[in-house]
């Protein structure tokens, strides 16, 4: 599973970082999302999905399969 962030949409709410710091961080310049591991392990799937659903901008999405 892979998570993709759209930096044009991200406004730096950092909800993803709060909810799943294993996969999401934020940069020190604009405070926008930094995806630490876009291909995340299955045990983090619930947390990543929660982070995606909590993004107030809808800037995150999960893509199935490595080709996505």
């Amino acid at each position, binding site marked *: 599973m892979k998570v993709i962030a759209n930096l044009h949409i991200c406004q*730096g709410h950092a909800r993803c970082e709060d909810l799943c710091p294993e996969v999401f961080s934020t940069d*020190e*310049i604009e*405070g926008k999302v930094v995806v630490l591991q876009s291909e995340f392990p299955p045990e983090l799937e619930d947390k990543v999905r929660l982070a995606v659903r909590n993004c*107030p901008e809808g800037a995150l999405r999960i893509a199935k399969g490595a080709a996505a």
Partner: protein
Amino acid sequence: MTLQWQPSPPDHVPAELMVDFDFFKIPQGEGDPAQIWHDLVRRGVPPIFYTPHNGGHWVFLKYDDIVEGYRDHEKFSTFQTPIPPIEPYPVVMPQGVDPPEHKVFRTLLAPMFTPHAVRKMHDDLAQRARRIIDRFADKGGCDFIADYASQFPTATFLELFGLPEERLPEFLEIAGVFFHSTDPDERAQNLNDIYAVLEELFREKERNPGTDLASAIVAARDAEGKQHPWIDILNCGFLLFVAGLDTVTNTMAYIWRYLATTPEAREYFRARLDDPAAFLLGIEELMRINAVSNIYRRVTHDFEYKGIQFRRNDRVILPNTVANRDGAIFKNPQMIDLDRKVNNHVTFGVGPHRCIGSHLAKREVMVSMQEWLRRIPEFELAEDQKESSAFGGSVMGFTSLELRW
């Protein structure tokens, strides 16, 4: 209720979209100023309506429309938006300008308010909170607003701006007038006072730069290596002053009011004192349910939205508290669920103007609560609350809140 006024809608507003609603007026005896907004929804008024009060303005009541009001700056601008209109009004920088101009100061301020930067402030915030609590913890009670909720964010502002804490009373005074005076002359004088303080502050930081935010703003250079226009610098200071004080104070007031009457909530947060991630999750729900800001926008040009005619310079209010309890978005929207999983609240807005201080605000609320609960784990509302302490407007809240323990 007798209808005291004869509505005379602007000619582009159909009569069925007119509602008699004054968001500054809180009925006598109403404990929660946000209730007037939720009553609108309960009464089933149109989700987009127009009120002739306060110079006349639209109100959006649906989450989706409120989000649209935030996102679409080409329709709904942040430039010169006060309701009722105040002329002249400072161009609050960068909140009061639209992209792309907005980006200049946003970029300048952003690094100082990132989650990373705010995490580094944690220990200072905690020390400050403890210092303030020390002054009243042994007294068995306090006026939460005067003794804690207004002091803490104001002292934090002074620290950020590299000003000594001795100036706290002076800043509490001018902030008090700014947020609560309705007298036009006093307000005009107060704006002058605030700008005089900012002028003096930035001049001093130009001569003797420090590591504070004010020094950074004054030292910043534009793409051509020049200092930003002086008026923009002052307006940026004004924004930070206006945005970071009353909002935090009243959010805290709402939260403590809830904690004082809800033993399970005190227990919930006490059990998470040493687990900041879990604590923050609970705070997030309190931010959703206690959204104190009603945000203004100005219509940029004539257009139709959802079949309704909007005219250039129409004002619009986006009440966050209403968006945050929209049943189409939130499960059991009126219920406070500290373990709520999906919580896309708009307390800090969305889109390009997302509150730049949101991470600091949340950290301030979190730290002030952690330190309080460590020192004063149990407390309740005192019996002698002041009448008519609740106020409405662009920031809703309370002028006093008596607690005891």
